[in-house]
């Protein structure tokens, strides 16, 4: 029997050895990544790829992560709603295409394939532009609309296939027996469509659940879906939490699959399962909608900023004191922040751009002038920071933090004495060096090494700097701004550019990582708090800024994020070892240093051209 079977399957490939191996290979491709994920979700280490022994601590951490649950909830709502809407819309489309003869029917049928074959990123951009033109604030509504746009054609095509097999005389029979058209639809057309409808709905739910691209373009702050959350976890702090999330999702999928399988065994189970599943889904939807509505009633403040730039305790207390829920939305660099905020209604109240951005954003009319009367705590600020050259009137910004970029390295691996940025060009550490993923930080450093200044706007200097960076390119692990600590800790890199606060955070726990200002000098920065012209909730923004300026809060915030703030009273209250730390509080002798990164005007285009070449070549 076995011999017969194998003979039948034999493609002249021997007695199945080849087939056995290729089957094994398929299995390996399918299962291997999942196995690794699941195993590493039980890792005790805080590094994703370093095994430190079995532990459930990341499960505990993940399950108690409120933001993650909010992301899951958002995903469920978006997927559920868009599945429902696209099923309804898709069914109507299928019925009108299958049943109704009208002009342009073939064109519509053809158009249905557009979102199916169109690259998703184009659809995402198209939707973004549309929402900007319609002046709609990006959020739940826009995400659901976007998901419906790409999922309903799938639904339509799936149901159309079924509609075309329907027997038309059955509808006539129903009408003939006295049923109205609506009743005919419900009792005669819908029942045979139901299996197709359900599988189409499930499909729409699935593609909505794991959609990243369209969500990325259409979402606003505060509507983070699970894929976006996972992406930001990868981008702004890789921890084994990702493995845990994946393991949980695999388990969830498995349970659903098994349940569906079990249901298909016989009719009673199916009915039971449908009822149970339907009830559960309805209860879930109710809960979700209630929780969203409950949250909606709460006042929200959306702050676009860098990771780890506000102390959670300070935020929690603000929420407790005012009832305003602060939502943080993270950006990679100033350029990305500009791009996101300059488009339509991004739904963001406050941003924390570097000072030099204020000139650019101010020129584009993105910023709203601040009313000093509504910010009485401005009096605690160091006057020297109030009217910096990028905004001599001081109307558009409140200084938030200041700091500098330094050289950060692992002293267990780089054992020779270090005093120069040249370490980042050292052949011996090829592939283990890291530069910021930030255009100006890169070019400023290169100019500095050559003895030039970026602010001179000299094309010859720029070309020399560019050549230097090109020369460095093959030595780099990558350009990265937000995972510097993680990559150093994980041993992927041995030296990197880093900001003082960030470096201090790692250095306090792991003293083997050394931070210094190389002899060529460095770049100082001031980050600011700015109110966007399109801010949905300016009142909350004023309350928040004023709250941050209060010395007690500023002190707590500084200690949390380890960046200096120009708030002398707050500094005075800090413990002496921090108060007098020169890494935290760089001695500023000349205020003009702080504006070193001024708006470069048209020269910026020249820099950008070379930056893009550097990154893409």
């Amino acid at each position, binding site marked *: 029997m076995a011999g017969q079977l194998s003979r039948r399957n034999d493609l002249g490939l021997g007695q199945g050895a080849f087939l056995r191996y290729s089957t094994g290979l398929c299995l390996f491709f399918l299962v291997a990544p999942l196995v690794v994920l699941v195993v590493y979700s039980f890792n005790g280490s805080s590094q994703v790829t370093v095994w430190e022994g079995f532990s459930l601590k990341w499960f505990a951490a993940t399950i108690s992560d409120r933001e993650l649950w909010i992301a899951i909830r958002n995903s469920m709502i978006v997927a559920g709603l868009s599945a429902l809407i696209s099923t309804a819309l898709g069914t109507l489309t299928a019925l009108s295409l299958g049943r109704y003869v009208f002009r342009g029917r073939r064109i519509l049928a053809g158009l249905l394939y557009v979102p199916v074959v169109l690259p998703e990123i184009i659809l995402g951009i198209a939707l973004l532009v549309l929402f900007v033109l319609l002046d709609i604030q990006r959020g739940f509504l826009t995400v659901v609309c976007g998901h419906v746009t790409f999922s309903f054609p799938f639904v339509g095509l799936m149901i159309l296939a079924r509609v075309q097999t329907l*027997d038309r*005389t*059955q509808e*006539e*029979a*129903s*009408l*003939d*027996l*006295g*049923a*109205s*058209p609506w*009743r005919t639809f419900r*009792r*005669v057309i819908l*029942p*045979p469509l139901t299996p197709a409808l359900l599988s189409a709905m499930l499909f729409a739910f699935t593609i909505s659940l794991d959609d990243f691209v369209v969500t990325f373009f259409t979402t606003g702050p505060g509507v983070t879906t699970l894929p976006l959350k996972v992406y930001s976890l990868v981008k702004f702090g890789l921890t084994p939490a990702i493995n845990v999330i994946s393991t949980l999702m695999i388990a969830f999928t498995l349970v659903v699959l098994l349940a569906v399988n079990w249901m298909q065994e016989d009719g009673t189970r199916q009915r039971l399962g449908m009822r149970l599943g339907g009830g559960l889904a309805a209860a879930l939807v109710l809960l979700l909608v209630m929780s969203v509505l409950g949250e909606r009633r709460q006042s929200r403040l959306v702050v676009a900023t860098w990771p780890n730039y506000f102390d959670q305790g300070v935020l929690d207390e603000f929420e407790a004191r005012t009832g305003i829920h602060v939502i943080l939305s993270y950006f990679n660099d100033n350029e990305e922040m500009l791009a996101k905020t300059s488009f339509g209604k991004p739904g963001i109240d406050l941003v924390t751009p570097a000072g030099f951005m204020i000139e650019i954003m101010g020129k584009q009319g993105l910023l709203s002038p601040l009313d000093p009367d509504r910010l009485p705590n401005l009096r605690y600020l160091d006057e020297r920071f109030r009217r910096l050259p990028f905004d001599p009137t001081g109307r558009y910004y409140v200084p938030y933090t200041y700091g500098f970029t330094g050289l950060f390295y692992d002293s267990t691996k780089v054992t020779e004495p270090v005093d120069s940025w040249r370490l980042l060009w050292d052949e011996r550490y090829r592939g283990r060096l890291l530069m910021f993923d930030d255009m100006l930080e890169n070019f400023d450093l290169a100019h500095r090494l050559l003895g030039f200044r970026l602010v001179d706007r000299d094309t010859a200097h720029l070309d020399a700097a560019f050549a230097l960076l090109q020369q460095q390119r093959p030595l780099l692990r990558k350009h990265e701004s937000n995972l510097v600590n993680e990559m150093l800790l994980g041993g992927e890199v041995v030296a990197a550019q880093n900001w003082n606060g960030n470096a201090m955070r790692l250095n306090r726990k792991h003293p083997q990582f050394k931070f210094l200002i190389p002899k060529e000098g460095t770049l100082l920065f001031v980050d600011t708090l700015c109110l966007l012209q399109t801010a949905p909730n300016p009142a909350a923004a004023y309350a928040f800024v004023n709250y941050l300026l209060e010395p007690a809060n500023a002190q707590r915030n500084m200690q949390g994020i380890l960046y200096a703030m120009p708030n002398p009273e707050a500094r005075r209250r800090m413990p002496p070892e921090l108060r007098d730390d020169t890494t935290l509080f760089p001695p500023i002798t000349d205020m003009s240093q702080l504006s070193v990164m001024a708006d470069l005007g048209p020269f910026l285009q020249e820099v950008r051209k070379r930056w893009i070449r550097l990154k893409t070549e």
Partner: protein
Amino acid sequence: MLEIQGVSKQYGSAVVVRQVRLQVGQGEFFCILGPSGCGKTTLLRLIAGFERPTEGRILLDGVDITHTPPYRRDVNTVFQNYALFPHCTVFGNVAYGLQVRRRPAGEIRERVDQALETVGLAGLADRMPAQLSGGQQQRVALARALINRPRILLLDEPLSALDKKIGEQMRYELADLQAKTGITFIYVTHNQVEAMSMAGRVAVMNRGSVEQCAPPAELYRSPATRFTADFVGSMNFFDGRIAEAGPDSFGILLADQTLVHRRGEAGARPGDPVVFGLRPEQLKVSLLEPRDFENGLFGRIERQVFVGDATLLRIRLSNGSPVEVRVPNYLVLENRVMALEPDEEVWVVWSQGSGVVLHD
């Protein structure tokens, strides 16, 4: 009760139903007969309300229902493919009409049981349509259409998908059912045997028009048009003209100059062109020349086709045209005639009392 007044239906430039006038009375078994494509199904759909006429009116009990949607017409249909709801049980199918009328559950159960009993399907209420034979599905469709006790039941070729035997049996059952319920049946078919065996009156349709509307026997005996004569039963046609007209008989001069006689009134003047029709069973073959009261044409047997109860002879007349003669086989079985040989030359004879004269 049902009045169709000058109804036409056009699709684009194609006229499918042309100026149809019909009246169907209460309790009648009315049949619409015609070849495929003659517009009979369209006419039925106009009555059911699935189509709106391009012109004309349809009245039910004196009320104009031309523009009433199908679900407000007291008319039900048995579809050619039955159109049972595949996701409903037999009970669900039959009960549908009552459920949409929101009758109480008890009444529904009772009436469905009764309807299933009537069509001989008691006990099959819980089956799904796919588990039934064609004949059983047919009965379910009937029960479903009758459950609302409509003023008119429309049947669209309901027996065409059944085996011959079952179809024949169903004919009697349908006729019985109609008699028992007293509901007006309008039955569409292309099968003249079905039409003749069940209907009280038959309307023959051709290319969208009604050619003749009469009881089956009359239709057969005196067809009004060549089409009817040909479609209902079969007929040999001869072109000719009236040659002489007497008070109780007249002569027809056929195209080949043979003069044949017919008793009765001519109803036309000498010289008028006519078509003379003879049914195959009215003809006999004989080796002898026709007698006084007979007409006769000479020809040669070309082919014999045995059909069981009779033998069909195809005879090529001396003038070149073919004629079909139907010889009942009981004569052969009883040895009362000798067997005919192929190629034998014979006389085709008929009584002067036979034959239809069509003034075309």
